[in-house]
């Protein structure tokens, strides 16, 4: 991001163009782009002092200041000759020839870094520096309309690209507006525009054809900004990532939306400016939107794309382009702000539930994004009739996004959005919190629902079933966007899921519901205890234990498919809790298995130090996971011995797992060694359910 220091150094380099040789300037720009401002200033100052260059007063003082900041020992204040004011520049430029190789290299440069920029080329006819290079020397001028773009980085990028292409040239990146040194003004007078990427700020959109503009660049730029920006301003706001629009109008709208949104995102956490912008955006929408359906779609699309963080970064830069136009629009928009402000509350409330549930844990991460969703939500067309909670469609884009609130605006649901249009916009309808909502327990699902989506998707359907049974443990994921899942396919064990989704793994699922439900043997991790499976479980324990050595990576001759067995084995292992037992408390074989179990545990965090072997076991888990993923889930068959489902296990929190483990350990111990150990470990307070398995086990 721009910082004053780099901007000042960059400006100093612009002022020194033509006073030192081009290679030194290029080297200095490279150093500045890499953050080595001090070295760049040192080199420049040394060259100027050695050459006893006569500089204009402002340049000389800027150089002295920069040298002082860079803590060089040169003392240019004393070493440089006294300043002499300059009248223009003594350099002369000419337009490049038609077949200029530098022009070709410039045109080959990718468009994305040059969005919002106009690139021109001129040839300098006069020497520069104490050891000038051949003439005429190519000078590439870039006029940037986006203030947030790093000029020094862009300079370096373009210069390096030209160098690689075999067409080295000086690159001068200037702001599109504001004063420019006489050197650059002289160059711009005769420069030929090569490309103009100002109109479209979105790099993912098809690049606009390079406009052959023979007009003199300064005039063109002076005119271009006002003419280009205002139309874009009228975008239906935060849709920076609008999908490829079906209509050009939509594209425009989304473009503008993106710009507006980025202004919002830049303002970030401040609600007030966000609200203002939201108000403005809505006002803009009101004025500009004749087709609400189109806007809705745009809103949806943009909402989906809101999630692309990198796009928002681009949008940020792009948003700057329309700063002036925005300023013009703002006063008018603010007049309407009062009314839209009400609407702001309306949609916001509607989504408040989700937001509370989902965003609270991830506030810090979601602040910037929340502004965007707020903006999007503020948009009446988008938010009004959001049926909300369930986004119906899978959202690959949504996967990494921490804003579940936007689910409703996914492009997969145009119909509900259209329904919003039916609502009168100015209506202020307080949204009751009683709207169907995820259970408050949602909050305990950990900090961030974001990473959840795809990797742990498979486990979701079973959770739903459990939720039906257990009100108190309804998972928050119900409201979350969930990719299509095959309930019976549990291709991933809870541990694997948690591994894929470190933030959401076990915490997202109801902790004990499946485990504690005796009526659902399939779901209960202690299923064997729930019913007659207990016997199988016990018998299988022995088998599982026997198989545990197999878990170490060797072939498992005892079990069937290793992958499937692996799932159950380690599930059983950690549930057995033997890993939590002191080695002395366990038998030799059990102790040996402890390590395995520890490794198999989905939650390795509490015991990383204790179980170094877990590392390589992890690799086993990886192997197994891939195997399991390919294998169609047959959980019941594979889990006979343990009676537990991996997904059920994944639903447990760490504490619950530990408790379960201890419980199981007790049972195992009780079976194997001491009956008394059964009673030692605490039993989760979740309910009397726990009482059941032990009884069964103890049989």
């Amino acid at each position, binding site marked *: 991001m721009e910082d004053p220091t780099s901007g000042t150094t960059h400006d100093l380099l612009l002022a020194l163009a033509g006073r030192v040789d081009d290679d030194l300037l290029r080297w200095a720009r490279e150093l500045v782009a890499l953050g080595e401002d001090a070295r760049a200033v040192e080199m420049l100052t040394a*060259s100027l*002092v050695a050459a006893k260059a006569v500089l204009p007063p402002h340049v000389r003082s800027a150089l002295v200041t920069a040298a002082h900041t860079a803590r060089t020992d*040169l003392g240019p204040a004393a070493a440089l000759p006294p300043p002499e004011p300059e009248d223009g520049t003594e350099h002369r430029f000419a337009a490049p020839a038609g077949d200029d190789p530098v022009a070709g290299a410039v045109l080959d440069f990718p468009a994305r870094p040059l969005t919002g920029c106009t690139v021109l080329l001129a040839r300098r006819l006069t020497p520069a520096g*104490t*050891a000038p290079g051949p003439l005429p020397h190519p000078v590439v001028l870039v006029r940037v309309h986006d203030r947030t773009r790093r000029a020094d980085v862009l300079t370096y990028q373009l210069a390096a690209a030209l160098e690689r292409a075999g067409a080295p040239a000086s690159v001068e990146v200037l702001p599109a507006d504001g004063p420019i040194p006489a050197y650059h003004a002289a160059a711009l007078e005769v420069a030929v525009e090569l490309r103009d990427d100002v109109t479209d700020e979105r790099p993912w959109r098809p690049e606009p054809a390079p406009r052959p503009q023979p007009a003199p660049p300064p005039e063109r730029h002076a005119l271009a900004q006002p003419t280009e920006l205002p139309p874009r301003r009228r975008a239906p706001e935060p849709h920076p990532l609008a999908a490829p629009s079906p209509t050009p109008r939509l594209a425009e709208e989304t473009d503008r939306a993106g710009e507006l949104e980025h202004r919002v995102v830049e303002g970030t956490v401040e609600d007030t400016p966000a609200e203002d912008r939201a108000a403005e955006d809505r006002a803009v929408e009101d004025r500009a939107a004749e087709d609400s359906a189109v806007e809705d779609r745009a809103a949806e699309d943009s909402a989906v794309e809101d999630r692309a963080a990198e796009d928002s970064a681009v949008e940020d830069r792009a948003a700057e382009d329309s700063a002036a136009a925005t300023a013009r629009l703002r006063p008018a928009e603010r007049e309407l702000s009062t009314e839209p402000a009400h609407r702001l509350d309306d949609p916001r409330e509607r989504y408040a539930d989700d937001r509370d549930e989902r965003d609270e844990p991830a506030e810090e991460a979601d602040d910037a994004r929340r502004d965007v969703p707020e903006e999007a939500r503020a948009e009446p067309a988008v938010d009004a009739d959001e049926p909300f909670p369930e986004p119906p469609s899978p959202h690959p884009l949504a996967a990494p996004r921490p804003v579940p609130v936007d689910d409703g605006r996914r492009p997969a649901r145009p119909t509900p959005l259209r329904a919003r249009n039916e609502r009168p916009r100015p209506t202020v309808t307080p949204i009751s919190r009683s709207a169907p909502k995820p259970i408050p327990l949602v909050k305990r699902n950990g900090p961030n629902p974001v990473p959840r989506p795809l990797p742990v998707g498979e486990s979701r359907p079973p959770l739903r079933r459990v939720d039906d049974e257990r009100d108190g443990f309804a998972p928050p994921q119900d409201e979350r966007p969930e990719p299509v899942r095959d309930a019976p396919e549990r291709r991933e064990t809870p541990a694997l899921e948690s591994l894929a989704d470190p933030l959401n793994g076990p915490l997202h699922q109801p902790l004990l519901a499946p485990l504690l439900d005796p009526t659902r043997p399939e779901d209960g991790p202690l299923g064997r205890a729930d019913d007659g499976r207990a016997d199988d479980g016990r018998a299988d324990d022995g088998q599982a234990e026997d198989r545990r050595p197999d878990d170490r990576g060797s072939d498992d001759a005892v079990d069937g498919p290793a992958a499937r067995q692996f799932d159950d084995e380690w599930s059983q292992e950690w549930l057995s809790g033997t890993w939590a037992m002191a080695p002395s408390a366990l038998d030799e074989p059990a102790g040996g298995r402890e390590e395995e179990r520890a490794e198999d545990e989905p939650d390795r965090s509490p015991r990383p130090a204790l179980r170094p072997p877990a590392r390589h076991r992890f690799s086993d888990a990886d192997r197994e996971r891939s195997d399991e993923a390919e294998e169609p889930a047959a959980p019941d068959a594979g889990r006979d011995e343990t009676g537990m489902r991996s997904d059920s296990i994944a639903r447990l929190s760490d504490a619950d797992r530990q408790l379960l483990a201890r419980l199981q350990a007790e049972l195992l111990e009780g079976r194997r060694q001491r009956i008394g150990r059964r009673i030692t470990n605490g039993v989760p307070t979740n309910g009397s359910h726990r009482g059941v398995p032990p009884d069964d086990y103890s049989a």
Partner: protein
Amino acid sequence: MSGARAAACHELLLRLAGRLPDELLWRMRDWLADGGQEVLASTLPRELLRHRVAITDDERELLETAVGSTHPLVDAVHPAAEPPPTQAEFEPGDGAVDTAALAVLAVVRGHPGCVELRQSWRGGQRIVLVIGAERPWELAGTLQRVMRAHGDRTPCVEVLPAHGERSSYHQAAIIGSRPLWRSATALVGA
């Protein structure tokens, strides 16, 4: 006197050939040619440290003469028993004399004290070797500018004393070079 100081700077920069990057070295020689001993004094120690160049005792003496022994960084420069052996490879080239070589020749002929002009190539980079010259730092600066005008962005001009010990870099360069010109004195052997 500036002459002695400049001579020390010149000899030091000569010895640093192959140990400092070309693009930095030619600039330092350019500064020296413009009478920028002070500039060198300010920048050379830091650059030696930055590029982790170790210098021998003789070179340290030169450095102290060039920059002044009171410079805080002079002592920080790594000592070395002897200069590291060069790993550069030089080729004499095919003997073609291009415009740049002709321009260099024109300058060398008119510079007092020059005995021989040789040219070598090191991985595509032209190396100009001048044996003997009065005020060699000035000649080096001039030749560098000539090379720059002909498109060489990092001119390597080594103005060596007519007699004296050569560094391994210069020895390799001389061995892998082709003579472009010899003064009458050199030819006659007087």
